[in-house]
């Protein structure tokens, strides 16, 4: 029943000498015997190699809990018997305390990364963003807008340019910016995309997506959203965010082993769109918007209505709503900021022209 003794090669783990040994199972079938060694079958572990390479489980060991000695059997009756008789031949043993070690290291690395991502990086990026000269920021903004453009549609979406619409847009821009003492030279544009969104890029670039014009019911609503975005621009939020995502995307790519490459650039555009400005930044932009709307006589009612209507919609939230779970409060806040409309932003005809700026409908 037990297989006969066979020749095998033994490395004793002490010297590199190759030793020819005769290996036989012990009479009770619970061990392998050769030379002066007795290897218990239940402690045998298979090592990857030609033939059947065996190691013996020990409590000590080094990187593996194995004794350094190796026994190499040819594929034959004895090897076949060992495969059947050894219960844990293929087990990959873990030393006690391994899970604790893993948890400790993961926590440590996670904590350090979090510290870098959420404390260190924001500080540095804010510092660097504040020191960035204006003309550099404008060049950067143009690049980001270009990036977003190609991100929105495969070969880039059209920038809308119906003349009457542009004129209406310009009128709205003047109403919001003229005489307000803004640091930035705001530059508005509309892109032909169905997404309901508007976002601010570095350098005073503000982009409205057509979906927003389709959804808004009055020019005052659009003006309200723009006032909010101008708030971001004046606070330099987009530059900070860009710096932050450049840093964190790099780290993310590092951690994930960057399967496809080029995560960094791709994320940048995405970040601005679905934006994750901090709550404080959003609140500050709101406050700025309310103030601006009151001062320009546009009134906050449009923005309040916009908040209320959008809140009921599901799906992807535009940036303006993203970090504010409760838009209802914002609508109230907008109303209580007061300021009745002194004079409409656009005439009905101009509003229709603005909605048709992409040459549709």
């Amino acid at each position, binding site marked *: 029943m037990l297989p006969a003794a066979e020749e095998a*090669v033994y*490395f*004793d*783990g*002490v*010297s*590199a*000498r*190759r030793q020819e040994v005769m290996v036989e199972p012990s009479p009770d079938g619970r061990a392998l015997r050769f030379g002066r060694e007795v290897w218990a079958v239940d402690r045998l572990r298979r*090592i*990857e*190699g*030609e033939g059947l*390479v065996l190691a013996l489980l020990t409590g000590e060991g*080094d*990187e*593996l809990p*194995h004794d*350094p*000695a*190796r026994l*190499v059997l040819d594929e034959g009756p004895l090897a076949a018997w060992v495969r059947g008789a050894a219960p844990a031949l293929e087990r*990959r043993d*873990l030393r006690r305390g*391994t899970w604790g*070690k*893993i948890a400790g*290291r*993961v926590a*440590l*690395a996670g904590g*350090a*990364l979090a510290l*870098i991502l959420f404390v*260190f*990086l924001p500080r*540095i*990026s804010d510092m*660097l963003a504040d*020191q*960035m*000269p204006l*003309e550099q920021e404008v*060049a*950067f903004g*143009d*690049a980001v807008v270009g990036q977003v453009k190609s991100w929105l549609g495969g070969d880039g979406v059209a920038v809308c340019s119906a003349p009457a619409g542009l004129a209406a847009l310009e009128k709205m821009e003047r109403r919001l910016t003229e005489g307000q003492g803004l640091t930035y030279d705001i530059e508005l544009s509309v892109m032909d995309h169905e997404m309901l969104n508007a976002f601010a890029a570095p350098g005073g670039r503000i982009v409205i997506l057509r979906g927003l014009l389709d959804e808004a019911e009055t020019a005052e609503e659009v003006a309200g959203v723009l006032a909010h975005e101008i708030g971001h621009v004046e606070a330099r939020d987009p530059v900070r965010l860009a*710096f932050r995502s*450049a*840093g964190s995307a*790099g*780290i993310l790519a*590092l*951690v*994930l*082993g*960057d*399967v*496809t490459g080029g995560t960094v650039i791709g994320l940048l555009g995405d970040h601005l769109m679905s934006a994750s400005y901090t709550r404080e930044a959003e609140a500050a932009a709101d406050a700025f918007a309310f103030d601006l709307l009151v001062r320009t006589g546009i009134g906050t009612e449009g923005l309040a209505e916009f908040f209320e209507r959008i809140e009921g919609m599901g*799906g992807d939230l535009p940036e303006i709503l993203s970090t504010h779970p409760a838009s209802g409060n914002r609508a109230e806040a907008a109303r209580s900021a007061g300021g009745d409309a002194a004079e409409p932003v656009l005439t009905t005809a101009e509003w229709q022209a603005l909605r048709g700026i992409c040459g549709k409908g």
Partner: protein
Amino acid sequence: MDHAGELKVTYRGDPAKLFPLALGTGVLGVITLGIYRFWAKARIRRHVWSKVQVGEDGFEFTGTGLEMFLGFLMAVVALAVYLAVVQLILFAVGIRFVFDPQNEMEEIAQGISIALSFLAVLPLMLFAAYRSRRYKLARTRFRGIRLAMENAAGGYMLRGLLYLLLTVATLGLLWPLMTFRLEAYMTERTWYGSARFRQGGRWQGLYSAYFHVLVGIGMLVLSAVFGAVAEEWMAGLLGVMGMIWGMVGLVIYRVRAFAYLMAHKEMDGGLGFRAEPRAGSVVWLYIKGVFIVGLLGGIASAVIFAPLGTLMVGIEDASELMMMEIAVVGVLSYLLVLTVFGALTLVFINQPILGHFVGSVTVTGAQALEAVRQRVSDRGADAEGLADALDMGGAF
């Protein structure tokens, strides 16, 4: 010729065994967002190491995915701090030039800032190269005896930077000096059990291997000269020829330098090597491999992307949920195709070339092995986390 004490080194890899392993571990890597890649690497190394045989005896890789993962966690923190700071500063300084170079000066500045961001990682890459080799050796066993490399990555990094500078300053003329000295630095710190390795030979000995690269460099220099005196077609022709000549020369150099350096290594007790790899075979294996990978990979892509194609029909009036599903399927298909190509490359390009190099080696004076004793295990080898984080582990 006396062949006593000689052992032939062979590689017994089998595509039919390696491919399922590479593909399976690759798919697991995608599913686990890349976490499994450490275990994948360990499994593939265990397989490949065991197929390298000296005489009758195989190598063994004892590294584990877990320790590589833990090493990576440590490395990534250090690296994240370093890179985040360096990259952000460069980003801030270089941003204007990168996006909108106004004039020639700024175009130069753009180039410099991109080069700087590479240079910032260079010391780390050298450091990691040494640590990675050290880890691999520390986790390699032959006849039950451990290999090891001393802890000296810092010295390697400094020397690497110095020789790199010399090489660049001499337009590549001193490359063999760098190759030789860096390899010698590692070899002299390599141990098999109680026996130490030495690197013999001289760095000038590499110049016959380097000949074709020199020809290529010469052509490029001539091309620059012609360019300066406005012989543009001549400059262009020489430039292209120099590039091609230099590239082929580089392959020849790597193969012959391997042979030279290997043949001049010696272990305590008089164990040595002979190596006869052939540049022609390496190039042929590469071309053949690219062809096979292209063919099989093409078929696999077609099979994987075909269902996606049928989904795309009628995407115009699909619901938003459908669109999302299609997008997810698309991304997964893409990652799957990448994985298939990765596995094919490993099996049909990397493995045959490795096999050729390994198979070209013969061990001489093998009786020296009898005297080798075990050494204690090296727990300081940091599981090459840094090398993995910098994506420079190489194929195996």
